[in-house]
């Protein structure tokens, strides 16, 4: 209902107080009202008694007067002798003396003297007078109630009555009202024709008249509360009527409003005091709850801000629970901050070296990217340790890590404005303070010697060799892409055997496109987009084409011819080489079968990737294929392929040898050539790399190398094939050197199967060195 504690408390307290006060006020009012009512009741009762007394006294006075007159001898004589003028004058005299309203005599014979008999009901009056000695009571004269007092006139027997009458109308009642302590309203009611009518002039008060009638009927003699309109307490006192048949009543009335009037200031005081009190309580509880709610509100606000990650402290002002809560909150907030800082530090730092980690690096780059102006660049450099595994193996893991850390420190010392982060175990990354790649390239060049100075770890100086790859972004690359480029640049730099270089987008190409190429390649195998070209191999002794090398070609429907080294290399890197090789094998077997059908029996060489040389499963599969088809294939492998996993590779080669499949060592001399392995490999052929053959005709060292290699191979029982033979002179030289086979443009370019069939059919060559001569040469050399 109320969203604020302060409002809630204020409303609660003020409400409670107001409620309590209302109860007090109501109680006071009820008490006052009942008290006032009781007081008025008592007063009314007292007034009733006073009235009785006054009535009695008055009656007595009148009675005394009447009595006195009735006993006066002269008066009696006048009455007895019917001396009317005398009687009238005597009555008038006494009326004046006593201040009476009316005075008259009624004879036993019904003669009225002193009053017009028409003004009253004589018969009724006479009966009443006769019925009782000294009758008195209320009697209507002129339709108005009068109090009548009678006394018999005895002379000495009853001759009549002297009657005094006093009005009971308003002036009389005002006199009675004055006797009361409280402002009563007194009226006389008399019954006329079943209706109770007030003697007062003025508007008829019907409820009061009805009430009087009911009170008289029920003989209600206690003051009673009359409701309706203005409440009033009413006391109805019956007054004796002269004749028993009719009745009269004195009605004393006191309005409650008047009774309560003296208490009004008290009530007003109670209400004013209550309102003041309520206002005070509201203000006080407002202030109290404010004091209570304010720190809570502050805590609430602080908690929200803390949640939002802000650094907050609540000011502790009190020593109560809230104060302690605020203290705890502050403590908690500071601990949260510390923990958060630690977490952030851990999240953004490398645990081993304490250098910022990749996340921190990305953040820093992102911030720099957001801050640079158009045209400026964010430049980063990936700094990789060369041969780190070897160094680590040499000095141990711990010191190697220390080495990385110290290099980071050194970079920071040389260029204080940069950020140094550790990207991988052996690669650091620096975000340059400079905004220009060219500038940074210059800097890198300058600081390279000092960077590569030996670093002391574990008390020893260790040589440091690093390669760097730089990349820059103007905002077109995000942090992750920029770092990736720096790493690629590092790879490119290493591949190019340079100390540092910037990312070369052209050389990098589009690796992601290459990846998709692989899935397309598998598709291409099915669709026949892949095919084999064959490059003939010339037997230098016979001049005949005795073999071909099958080379995979891919005519991509949209990209055109794709370089073999691209898709083969990709297939090797992405694990698709097996599928490719399976295809080549199958196709080579098929092509050979077609050549045979055309009458050409040539040995078909197939390149087997180094990745498959140590694969037993592949070897078994290939052997099974070849054997099943009765094909004559030669597997060309590189010497390097054997070096990776020599035991397995050599056993695979043994399997091939056992199966009668000749093996050729490809590209000999270009890679790492190990005589030790050469000795172990059971190969039938050695192919000299074209790098040596192409510059053969120039003479010099290459010719010497080729000659000695040919001799070496022959000594090991292998035939020698020279690749890259492009000139007749080269061919002649090889022939003279005793090389067995030649392959190259000078002999033939690789060609499709159909062309090959034609080629073989039309083949003829004039050998540079005639057979005899060569034989001579051979002989000479032998």
């Amino acid at each position, binding site marked *: 209902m109320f969203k604020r504690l302060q409002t809630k408390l204020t409303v609660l307290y003020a409400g409670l107080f107001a409620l309590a006060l209302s109860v007090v006020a109501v109680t006071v009012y009820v008490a006052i009202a009942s008290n006032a009512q009781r007081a008025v009741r008592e007063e009314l009762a007292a007034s009733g008694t006073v009235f009785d007394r006054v009535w009695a006294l008055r009656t007595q006075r009148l009675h005394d007067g009447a009595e006195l007159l009735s*006993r006066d*001898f002269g008066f*009696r*004589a006048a009455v*007895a*002798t019917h001396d009317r003028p005398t009687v009238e004058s005597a009555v008038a005299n006494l009326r004046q003396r006593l201040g009476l309203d009316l005075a008259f005599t009624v004879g036993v014979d019904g003669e009225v003297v002193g009053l017009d008999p028409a003004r009253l009901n004589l018969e009724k009056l006479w009966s009443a007078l006769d019925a009782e*000695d*000294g009758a008195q009571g209320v009697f209507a004269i002129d339709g108005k109630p009068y109090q009548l007092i009678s006394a*018999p006139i*005895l*002379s*000495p*027997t*009853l*001759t009549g009555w002297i009657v005094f009458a006093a009005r009971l109308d308003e002036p009389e009642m005002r006199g009675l009202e004055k006797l009361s302590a409280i402002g009563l309203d007194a009226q006389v009611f008399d019954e006329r024709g079943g209706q109770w009518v007030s003697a007062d002039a003025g508007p008829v008060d019907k409820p009061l008249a009805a009430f009087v009638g009911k009170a008289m009927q029920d003989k209600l003699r206690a003051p009673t509360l009359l409701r309706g309109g203005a409440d009033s307490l009413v006391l109805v006192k019956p007054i004796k009527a002269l004749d028993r048949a009719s009745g009269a009543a004195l009605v004393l009335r006191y309005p409650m409003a008047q009774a309560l009037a003296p208490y009004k200031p008290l009530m007003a005081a109670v209400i004013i005091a209550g309102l003041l009190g309520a206002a005070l309580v509201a203000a006080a509880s407002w202030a109290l709850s404010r004091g209570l709610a304010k720190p809570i509100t502050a805590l609430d606000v602080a908690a929200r801000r803390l949640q939002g990650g802000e650094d907050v402290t609540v000011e502790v002002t009190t020593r109560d629970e809230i104060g302690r809560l605020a203290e705890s909150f502050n403590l908690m907030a500071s601990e949260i901050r510390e923990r958060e800082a630690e977490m952030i530090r851990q999240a953004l730092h490398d645990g081993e070296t304490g250098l910022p980690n990749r996340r921190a690096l990305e953040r820093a780059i992102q911030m720099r990217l957001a801050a640079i102006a158009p045209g400026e660049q964010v430049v980063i450099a990936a700094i990789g340790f060369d041969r780190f595994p070897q160094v680590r193996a040499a000095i141990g893991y711990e010191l190697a890590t220390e080495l990385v850390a110290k290099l980071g420190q050194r970079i920071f010392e040389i260029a204080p404005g940069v950020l140094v982060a550790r990207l991988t175990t052996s690669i650091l990354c620096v975000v340059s303070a400079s905004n220009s790649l060219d500038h940074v390239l210059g800097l890198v060049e300058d600081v390279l010697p000092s960077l590569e100075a030996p670093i002391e770890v574990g008390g020893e100086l260790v040589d440091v060799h690093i390669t760097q790859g730089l990349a820059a972004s103007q905002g077109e690359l995000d942090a992750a892409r920029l770092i990736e480029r720096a790493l690629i640049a590092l790879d490119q730099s290493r591949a190019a055997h340079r100390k540092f270089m910037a990312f070369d987008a052209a050389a990098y190409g589009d690796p992601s496109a290459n990846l998709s190429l692989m899935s397309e390649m598998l598709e291409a195998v099915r669709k026949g987009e892949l095919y084999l070209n064959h490059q003939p191999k010339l037997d230098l002794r016979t001049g005949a084409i005795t073999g071909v090398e099958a080379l995979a070609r891919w005519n991509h429907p949209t990209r055109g011819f794709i370089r073999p080294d691209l898709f083969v290399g990709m297939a090797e890197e992405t694990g698709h080489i097996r599928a490719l090789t399976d295809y080549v094998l199958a196709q080579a077997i098929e092509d050979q079968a077609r050549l045979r059908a055309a009458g050409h029996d040539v040995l078909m060489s197939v390149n087997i990737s180094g990745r498959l040389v140590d694969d037993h499963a592949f070897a078994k599969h290939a052997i099974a294929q070849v054997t099943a088809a009765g094909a004559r294939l030669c597997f060309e492998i590189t010497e390097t392929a054997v070096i990776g996993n020599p035991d397995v590779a050599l056993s695979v080669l043994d399997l091939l040898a056992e199966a009668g499949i000749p093996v050729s060592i490809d590209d000999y001399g270009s890679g790492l050539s190990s005589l030790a392995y050469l000795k172990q490999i059971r190969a039938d052929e050695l192919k000299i790399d074209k790098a040596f053959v192409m510059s053969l005709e120039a003479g010099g060292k290459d010719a010497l190398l080729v000659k000695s290699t040919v001799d070496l191979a022959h000594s090991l029982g292998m035939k020698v094939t020279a690749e890259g033979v492009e000139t007749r002179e080269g061919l002649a030289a090889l022939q003279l050197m005793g090389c067995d086979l030649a392959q190259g443009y000078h002999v033939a370019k690789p060609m499709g199967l159909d062309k090959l069939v034609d080629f073989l059919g039309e083949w003829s060559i004039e050998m540079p060195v005639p057979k005899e001569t060569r034989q001579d040469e051979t002989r000479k050399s032998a």
Partner: protein
Amino acid sequence: MRHAALLLMAALWAGPALAGDFTVTVRGSDGKPVPDAVVMVYPNGQPTKGPIKFPWAYRVAQQNIQFNPFMLVVPVGADVAFPNLDKVRHHVYSFSAGNKFEIKLYGHEENRTAKMSTVGVAAIGCNIHDQMVGFIRVVDTQYAAKTDANGVVTIQDVPAGAIKASVWHPYMRAMKNEKALTTASVGAGAAREQVTVDLRAPAGH
């Protein structure tokens, strides 16, 4: 003595005619005997011609601030004496029509008289002492007397024949405080009648 002799002479003189006693017993409506009720008998309904003489003294004394007797029957024209036997003085009066008189203050042992000139009633009072009330019934018949304490009165020697008789009492609720008796005639023997009357209380003093 002289009165007694006169009475005797009259009786004798009345001759040998037949006569009888008429006894009336008067009781109140409560059954109690009513004393001082005056029974008047008119033989043939006629008042007595000639002088009327009663055997009791025509005298109302004032004794102990009371009239004594309370009731006195006198013939019309009789002089009634009002001897004051008290030590205080009295002022006796009557406003009764026809028999109006006033005997102003007089003392002990003083005697005053007043003449009852009209048949009827003389209600007598004392102007000094309101409680003193007495009545003098002035009659025009020989045959009248008042009841005694037992409410009984005997009218002697009522001539036989038709009569008109009535009973009167000052407090009787009746026209002129009088009630006719039912006996219409008397014979030689004794006649009796018992009558019940309704009395009102005397006017308060």
